[in-house]
């Protein structure tokens, strides 16, 4: 942008600005969204880093009083949450957005608007989370692990805390939408010739990351739903001593451990791209790395969570099991690291990306070996909750992850900007970061006796010197990141134009492969899309931003719902959300934003439509959500005797007949839905409308029966907050009823669409919707016996 002194120039600048805002708020282009993700994650990273620097200042000398205990606890909590969920993971997603479609030759993601929704939900979830710090009561102060019952409203009241947790739930939604979108893209949108064996390594690691996201986030969402129900609706799931505290640790770590790999794997993907290029030879053990990650890391990462609970009093058999699974999961990582090292044997070209990749591997080796120490349930007695653990996971999550992702950023910067960064600044950035990092975190390995998350310590502990060194290191390490910012700005504003493929990489995103479609794969070296302007104009939409604003406002209202104004905000948010969704539906009716449905001709999803595949993946994540909720109910019930809670006898609270009527209604609606799908296939418009209408009527009947039961219970004085069993009943049936309601809304949409567009074209989505409806019915088949029959 050039400032010109004339009026005309100023006008042009103003016009430019408006166009720019319009472009970035309506874009659905994967490259542009990648850049938005990158900038936003850098912002949140800066916020998290500031919190860390302040904590290091507080800890630099004994008995320091820079931060109060409550402020320190808020910082320690928000630092963890922001860094892991709003910085590291989204930084990986930024690179995935930009490069996964390029690597597989896809024109864009499978659902470009949903990609924009993911981004805006991510942005606003972060705004909510940071905003929570400034509301009355401040932000959460119970650690990023949000242990219970400390974070229930009994011990931590305050709307700010609620807002942060709702922001977290919103992020979980964003991540789930994003992982569905990416998985469909990778499975479905690969260019002809991009067979599974040719998929580049970064895309492989992205795929594994996405699968883990899909598996890990639903349990977190379920845990947050229950926590918010405790905080806002008065249930006592985590407040009660009936296993609530242990339930949370299980759910949280079931999410939390895979989350570590979610953060780490994109960095490994970048390293696996960089090493062969700078070593000038193939990546050693390429197939072995893919197999080890896919077949060992993914399943095992779901089976190690209790190593975070070694001192919670689990029995010896569990200790042994989880220690062994943890030690086994280090084998695939050994394979990966050894393959990386073998690739470098014989020397490499030492440019900035390679140096950062080297740093990442060294730090991962240290972090990984210290992780083996932590797999021992004997050693963990002391390490658990100590600074040894802090050192360990910072070596993995800051060392390996950030160094690896920064390597990726430098490596791909010429592709993104079309310009070359400053090599001198890059080397300086690495040298100071690497030294600063080790000065910061190596001393923590020696602070074995010092517990984490303490605001201060007395001089008599003897921890002062090591803490002081660490704090000095933190300032060096943090300061070095200013060089990164300087280098990025230099590249953008003053960098020399780069040749299209400066590293002579053979990877498809550099446009060297003849395999790919011309669209989106040219080494154009511009931020912008490579498609023609005409196509691009059709691929912009205001709806993703509007929908996300609607959700964010509603959540602000929910968090502040203890106040009257908060309830009003909920209404405003919901009205806006409905408006945005209606406009979205209208866009669809008018084919304003249309993508040709391409059938995947790629193994193993040959012949499965894009939307159908997306629906299946969504259902998989929803199964985990309900599975977590139902499993939690069973766990609480199993432990209820401790709290002296008696589960109501059959027929005592919940009338079996009423339950049976609603069950029959819902099951019948599955039958009518099948008939609707069959009529659509046969092209019988009238029958289609009749069967779809009957399904709607039966669904509505179910919902009304449910509502009448809720109302009669309410009249009897039974509500969310009256007892543990009652609260669980209302919460689970409520979550299910919201799914039914969403289904009814979608049926209205399908009926309107069929009226407007008679014929198979207007009703083709029914088969995809039927999957959802059947799933919702099946969930009830589990809920009915759970609350009515046993």
């Amino acid at each position, binding site marked *: 942008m050039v400032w010109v002194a004339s009026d005309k120039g100023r006008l042009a600048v103003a016009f430019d600005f408006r166009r720019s805002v319009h472009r970035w708020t309506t874009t659905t282009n994967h490259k542009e969204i990648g850049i938005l993700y990158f900038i936003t994650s850098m912002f949140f990273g800066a916020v998290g880093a500031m919190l860390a620097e302040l904590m290091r200042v507080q800890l630099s000398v004994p008995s320091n009083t820079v931060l109060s*205990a*409550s402020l320190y*606890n808020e910082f320690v909590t928000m630092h963890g949450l922001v860094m892991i969920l709003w910085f590291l993971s989204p930084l990986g997603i930024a690179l995935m957005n930009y490069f996964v479609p390029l690597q597989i030759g896809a024109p864009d993601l499978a659902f470009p608007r949903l990609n924009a929704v993911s981004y805006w939900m991510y942005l606003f979830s972060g705004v909510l989370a940071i905003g929570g710090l400034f509301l009355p009561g401040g932000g959460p102060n*119970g*650690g990023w692990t949000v*242990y219970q*019952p*400390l974070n229930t409203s009994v*011990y931590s009241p305050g709307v700010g805390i609620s807002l942060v947790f709702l922001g977290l739930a919103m992020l979980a939604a964003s991540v789930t939408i994003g992982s569905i979108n990416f998985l469909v893209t990778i499975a479905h949108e690969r260019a002809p010739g991009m067979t599974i064996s040719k998929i580049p390594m970064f895309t492989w690691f992205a795929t594994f990351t996405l699968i883990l996201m899909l598996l890990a986030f639903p349990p977190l969402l379920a845990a947050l739903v229950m926590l918010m129900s405790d905080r806002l609706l008065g249930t006592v799931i985590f407040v009660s001593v*009936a296993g*609530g*505290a*242990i339930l949370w*640790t299980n759910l949280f770590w079931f999410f939390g451990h895979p989350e570590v790999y979610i953060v780490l794997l994109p960095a490994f993907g970048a390293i696996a791209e960089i090493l062969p290029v700078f070593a*000038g030879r193939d990546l050693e053990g390429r197939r072995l790395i893919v197999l080890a990650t896919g077949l060992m890391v993914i399943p095992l990462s779901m089976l190690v969570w209790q190593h975070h609970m070694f*001192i*919670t*009093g689990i029995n010896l058999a569990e*200790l042994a099991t989880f220690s062994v699974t943890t*030690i086994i999961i280090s*084998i695939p990582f*050994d*394979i990966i*690291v*050894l393959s*990386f*090292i*073998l690739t*470098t*044997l*014989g*020397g*490499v*070209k*030492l440019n900035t990306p390679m140096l950062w990749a*080297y740093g990442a*591997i*060294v730090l991962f*080796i*240290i972090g990984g*070996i210290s992780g*083996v*120490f932590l*797999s*021992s*349930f*004997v*050693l963990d*007695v*002391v390490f*658990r*909750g*100590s600074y040894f653990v802090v050192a360990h996971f910072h070596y993995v999550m800051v060392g390996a992850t950030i160094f690896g992702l920064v390597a990726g950023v430098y490596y791909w910067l010429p592709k993104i900007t079309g310009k070359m960064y400053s090599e001198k600044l890059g080397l300086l950035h690495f040298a100071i970061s690497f030294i600063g990092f080790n000065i910061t975190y190596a001393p923590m390995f020696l602070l*074995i*006796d010092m*517990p*984490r*998350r303490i605001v201060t310590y007395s001089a008599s502990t003897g921890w002062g010197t090591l803490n002081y060194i660490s704090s000095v290191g933190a300032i060096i390490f943090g300061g070095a990141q200013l060089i990164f910012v300087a280098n990025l700005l230099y590249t953008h504003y003053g960098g020399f134009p780069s040749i299209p493929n400066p590293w002579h990489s053979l990877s498809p995103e550099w446009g060297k492969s003849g395999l790919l479609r011309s669209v989106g794969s040219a080494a154009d070296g511009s931020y912008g899309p490579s498609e023609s302007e005409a196509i691009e104009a059709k691929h912009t939409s205001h709806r993703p931003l509007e929908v996300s604003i609607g959700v964010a406002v509603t959540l602000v209202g929910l968090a502040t719902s203890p106040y009257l104004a908060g309830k009003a905000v909920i209404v405003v948010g919901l009205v806006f959300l409905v408006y945005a969704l209606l406009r979205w539906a209208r866009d669809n009716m008018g084919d304003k934003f249309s993508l040709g449905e391409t059938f995947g001709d790629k193994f193993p999803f040959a012949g499965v439509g894009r939307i159908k595949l997306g629906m299946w993946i969504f259902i998989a994540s929803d199964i985990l959500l309900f599975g977590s909720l139902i499993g939690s109910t069973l766990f609480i019930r199993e432990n209820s005797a*401790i*709290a002296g809670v008696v589960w109501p006898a059959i027929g005592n609270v919940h009338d079996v007949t009423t339950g049976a009527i609603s069950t029959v209604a819902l099951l019948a609606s599955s039958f009518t839905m099948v008939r609707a799908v069959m009529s659509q296939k046969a092209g019988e418009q009238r029958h289609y409308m009749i069967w779809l209408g009957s399904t709607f009527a039966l669904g509505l009947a179910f919902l009304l029966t449910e509502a009448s039961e809720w109302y009669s219970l309410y009249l009897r004085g039974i509500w969310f907050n009256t007892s543990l069993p009652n609260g669980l009943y209302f919460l689970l049936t409520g979550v299910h009823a919201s799914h039914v309601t969403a289904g009814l809304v979608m049926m209205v949409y399908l009926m309107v669409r069929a009226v407007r567009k008679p014929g198979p074209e207007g009703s083709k989505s029914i088969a995809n919707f039927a999957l959802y409806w059947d799933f919702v019915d099946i969930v009830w088949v589990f809920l009915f016996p759970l609350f009515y029959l046993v």
Partner: protein
Amino acid sequence: MAVTPPTVAIWTSVFDVYLVLGTLVGIVVISVLTYSVFTKPKVKAEVGPKRSLERRKKIRAVILTLITISILTTVELDTFSATSLVTVPSDPANSMTIQVVGQQFFWTFIYPNGYAQVGNLTIPVGETIVLNITSKDVFHSFAIQQLDVAKDAIPGRYNQLWLEVPTPSQYSIICKELCGVGHAFMTAELYAVNASTFNAWYGSLQTKGG
């Protein structure tokens, strides 16, 4: 007379194996990586036909994996040899069970005779002490880092740990799980005293009726 408390002896014996092997592996692997990264790249003269080269690579991979697995097995067996640290002996002779209750932000110790004391735990030397740990409010974690013992204090649950102190001495008790604003100051002191001193003190409590 052993001066090292048995829990410390067990923990340290396990730690030493991990430390030696871990340091060794770390140094070797990082050295190899650093050497190869900081040597100028040269075109590798790969001698022999491609098939034998592939075979050599495969053998190399198998050997490296076997080395990895044997090191991991060694340390895991090392851990399994020390389960006595985390399992509480069932009703050991010469032992005393004391109940520990964590709450925001102090520890209460309840002796078999019902006497409750806040902030310091007095025990006799040379005796196996079993602590029965729970919490009155939120999730805490009871830890004596210098004695290498810790267990979470969880509302509604009782967790046991054992310890034994051979000589009169003093240790700090801390909370290892963030439990609120006073977490850093939720400390207590463990005093191990001679059996005769302990008995005299404990006996005097009973006359006070707890």
